[in-house]
């Protein structure tokens, strides 16, 4: 794992020196700001603002943002051929994948931190439930980590960034929907099992309500671990494919 911090730093620097990453950040801020201002206008003097408002929006936004953040990570290395150099450097395959993944997660954390501006505004004009908000942010942070891990798999799978992003979005869309399952699956028990596999199913009923449930953390952490494992295997497969 000695290579992880070095790869992590290179990838993080790549994010922060890339104009595209800042464009993504701008889009991210515009979408969250629209929601925030809309909700604020409705909420004035009537009701408290939903403490999980921004995280709730992000559950949908991340389906599109996460693959854009991760598409480059391995697909580019693959296409440019730098992966061959990385795989012959004295670092394990796992440390390469993990280093890259952590960089994506940290960049996402930076994006998430930008949205704290909305919370700062709220504190100044109301008495919001900050601990509830904190819970929802922890949830969406993990949720984001999981979506990034899914995106990474597709970056490892293909050489084309566009394809990686596209496949990642489709996979996340499938993983996302929980409230629509009942309309697709008539059997409620099967529906419940699928529900437990969805990203939304572990966020809306708990984190968004201000509750942290251990099983949800296990779900997101498990998803991250499995997806990273698959990514590592896919990178490794370069050696025998």
């Amino acid at each position, binding site marked *: 794992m*000695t*290579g992880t911090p*070095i*790869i992590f730093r*290179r990838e993080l*620097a*790549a994010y922060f*020196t*890339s104009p595209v990453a800042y464009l993504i950040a701008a889009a991210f801020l515009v979408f969250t700001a629209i929601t925030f201002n809309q909700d604020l206008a409705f909420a004035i003097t009537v009701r408290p603002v939903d403490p999980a408002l921004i995280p709730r929006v992000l559950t949908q936004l991340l389906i599109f943002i996460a693959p854009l953040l991760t598409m480059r990570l391995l697909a580019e290395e693959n296409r*440019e*051929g*730098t*992966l*061959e*150099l*990385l*795989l*012959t*450097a*004295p*670092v394990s395959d796992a440390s390469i994948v993990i280093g890259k993944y952590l960089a994506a997660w940290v960049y996402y954390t930076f994006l998430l931190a930008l949205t704290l501006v909305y919370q700062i505004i709220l504190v100044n004009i109301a008495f919001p439930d900050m601990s509830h908000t904190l819970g929802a942010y922890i949830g969406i942070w993990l949720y984001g980590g999981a979506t990034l891990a899914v995106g990474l798999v597709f970056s490892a799978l293909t050489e084309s960034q566009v394809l990686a992003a596209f496949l990642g979005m489709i996979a996340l869309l499938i993983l996302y929907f929980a409230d629509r399952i009942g309309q697709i699956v008539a059997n409620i028990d099967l529906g419940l099992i699928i529900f437990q596999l969805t990203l939304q199913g572990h966020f809306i009923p708990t984190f968004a309500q201000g509750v942290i449930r251990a099983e949800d953390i296990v779900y997101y952490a498990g998803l991250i671990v499995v997806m990273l494992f698959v990514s590592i295997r896919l990178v490794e497969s*370069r*050696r*025998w494919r």
Partner: protein
Amino acid sequence: MIEVENLVKRYGNMTAVKGINFRVEPGEIVGLLGPNGAGKTTTMRMLTGFMPPTEGTIQICGFDVVEDSMSVRQRVGYMPERVPVYPDMTVEGYVTFWAKLRGVRDVRARVHAVLEQFQLLDRRKQLVRFLSKGLRQRLGLAQALVHQPPVIILDEPTIGIDPRQVIEVRDAVRSLREGHAVLFSSHILSEVEQVCDRVIIINHGQIVGEGTPETLSRQLAGRQQVFVVVEGGSDARISAFLRKIPDVVHVRAMDDGFLITTKSDVDLRPTLSRLITQEGFTIVEMRAVDASLEDVFLTLTETKQP
């Protein structure tokens, strides 16, 4: 330094490398010569630990490539074909990254040293994407040497760059002889002759010739190639006819005509022209061609291929 024993690599049912053996000693530059698809890149990838061999063993500085992969990787400097780079990094950043990743102790000093060695010092703040192909090649060498590896493996270091840059790269490779074991691959005979102490020729995954450039040249001497464009019959008929001519070793359709490889060391052109005309065909064009390596291999491997 490099010891390869009975190396085999199979992809599914395709065997890319069929049991090769060779050694490279320190202070020696060895050229791995062969046409495209001969198994050069596969061999090198196994040497660097990129992919494991199906059978056989590779020892680098006494470490087994499979068992002790990390030790091997630390001791190998590798420049893959077409020099992969991160276009959005600076020259210095790029070399520093590889230095750190390979555990170089004094990163700054070493990066400075290799950049100086390959005359990249004045461009160290430039983005890699703005480098010319030749400069990228030098960057690839700087990257491969930054951790002072005892073994250097260069895959086609001169492909796709202009002649002046080729000379630069050759000089750079030649300068590495001191204390390093260098293995470099090429499909250009003359290049190998100029740079290497020893040449290993592989084709279809097998070693078909080995020796100093001089002995190889001698082996290859007396081959001639003639390119003819013939009219007056179907290609198949003409090709069959040409094959029957004595001393013709090989006929291959190329562009609009045929490339004929001959065995004899006398000029076969008069004989050819006479025989073709006698058969009732018309010669549109005929010229002698410098023996290309690919065709040399064909003659070398003639007896082994059915």
